[in-house]
């Protein structure tokens, strides 16, 4: 179980998406680390990888929109962090597209994604939660 309760920021929309991200990433790591033959799990890896990269972007967009709604003061810093995160993912997508779609590179990518996500949600996103609590922001999560 990768998700930890202390990652919650108290905003349902964002917490739910974070939980989904951790759940999918955990599934991705399980596939990547399973002892199944690489050729046999390749389709599963590709499918999960596609979902992960799309969902990260979708989540970042929602999270940035929420920050705009609440006039979050560190929105620009957070946007930059998201841009860097996206760039990291895109670097790997390029590597995979250029033909290096192999077990070693996929494992490397899964590990980095895990570390980036834990760090981003565990540190940077917590500041959104602190702001929301401090300012008593009302949630508009529809």
């Amino acid at each position, binding site marked *: *179980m*990768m998700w*930890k309760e202390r990652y919650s920021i108290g905003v349902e929309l964002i917490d739910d998406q974070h939980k989904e991200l951790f759940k999918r990433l*955990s599934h991705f*790591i*399980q596939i*990547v*680390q399973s002892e199944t033959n690489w050729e046999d799990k390749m389709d599963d890896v590709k499918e999960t990888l596609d979902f992960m990269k799309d969902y990260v972007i979708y989540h970042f967009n929602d999270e940035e929109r929420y920050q705009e709604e609440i006039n979050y003061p560190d929105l620009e810093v957070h946007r930059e962090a998201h841009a860097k995160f996206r760039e990291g993912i895109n670097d790997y997508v390029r590597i995979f597209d250029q033909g290096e779609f192999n*077990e*070693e590179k996929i*494992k*490397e*990518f*899964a*590990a*980095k994604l*895990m*570390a*980036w996500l*834990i*760090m981003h949600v*565990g*540190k940077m996103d917590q500041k959104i939660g602190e702001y929301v609590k401090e300012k008593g922001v009302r949630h508009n999560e529809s």
Partner: protein
Amino acid sequence: MKAECINAFYSATQDVFNLMLDLRVERGDIKVVEGLVSSRNANVVLGVTGDLKGSILFSFTQDMTLEMVRIMSGLEMKTIDSFVSSALGEVANIIGGNAVTNLTNHNYICDIVPPQVIIGEYQSLSMANKKALLIPLRTHIGEFDINIFLSESQ
């Protein structure tokens, strides 16, 4: 080497271990060592450029490395494969990034060169026999070291 350099890396390590691994890190007595030599299985070397120049070596045992990745992923790890070594390298990279931010507060502007993960015992990462500082660190899942070899750019 100034105390702020050591503290920058020590406090970054404490923060990242606490945040990513739920681990408390305690420091032992700092030693002066010749070059960057490791007697542990899993090593990560980070290059530092800018106002400070040199290398940082993180040294972990295999057991501790596997346990660190288990904590992060929630899955048992049996061997140090490219998933485990990449995760370890990224933890060290994040520590390095945070340390560089800490150093900015002391007016040192530095950058981190992407990590190099070296698996295997008794790797000698010689720095032309120059002296490095070794910080022994303890957590409840094992002990590890950080070797710091940094000098101020001319």
